[in-house]
């Protein structure tokens, strides 16, 4: 196998693994966050606006980790720096 093939295989496998693992764990933690927010909403409906806003901000924070993984896999597939280096050489 030449270098281009190895880089291609490694990029694609790593991209799939990155998105797979990187969305699995944030999904778990988002579920936990939503579950605890729902139970606290049921206990204290008066504080719903504060709880909802904090939930949204927290969800955005958690979700950004998944988004980072997605961006990394997009870079690996479409804008791989090693790939560009080999092609240019």
């Amino acid at each position, binding site marked *: 196998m030449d270098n281009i093939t190895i880089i291609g295989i490694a990029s694609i496998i790593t991209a799939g693994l990155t998105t797979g693992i990187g969305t699995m764990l944030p999904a778990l933690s988002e579920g936990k966050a939503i579950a605890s927010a729902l139970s606290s909403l049921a206990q204290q409906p008066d504080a719903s606006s504060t709880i909802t806003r904090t939930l949204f901000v927290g969800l*955005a924070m958690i979700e950004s980790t998944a988004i980072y993984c997605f961006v990394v896999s997009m870079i690996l597939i479409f804008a791989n720096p090693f790939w560009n280096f080999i092609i240019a050489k």
Partner: protein
Amino acid sequence: MKLSPDDTIFWSNGFININLTIVTTWGLMLVMVIGAWLITRKLQTGIKISRWQTILEMIVLSISSQVKEVGMDKPRRYIPFIGTLFLFIGIANLCIIFPGYEPPTGSLSTTTALAISVFLAVPFFGIEEGGLRGYLKTYLEPTWLMLPFNLIGEFTRTLALAVRLFGNIMSGGMIVAILLSIAPFIFPVLMDVLGLLTGIVQAYIFSVLATVYIAGAVQARKSKQKT
């Protein structure tokens, strides 16, 4: 496959490129400015007010109440900045219902510009409220040991703001593009509807996070005065 609307270049001279992002951004800015000018030209105070004025009042009042809920007691001062962020991102993301439109928020340069304006607005409002000494003291909270971490946090949260908005909008557009090539009948429409929802949620999150960061710089001084 195109990653962002930056790659569609209309006119280029030297290192200056007029790409689709710039064109759509200026178009949206023109629409927003002209729309706001047309609506606010004849504001009424009586019982009968025009429809557009009602919509604008609703938007301004809801943003004001959101800012107030974060804990800032003078929301009027922050509405021009935060409201502009929310309206621009919201309109830019909602316009995906027009065919052939690519949201400028799906380009890392636009989101970085928005995040940098938040990065600059935080010390601006903080210094305006608490003075230079009061603002710089917020970096030493709770102890001076936290100074490097506060500084790192300042930069990483700006990066996070930019990458979050970019990733969300870009992934939405990319999923629609992939679905169009494999199942071009109904599924892209459903994903577009989901894209409308995530677009508004991202606009909300971006402006709420900007509000929270500004509130953090503004309020540290105030809570000390109380005790």
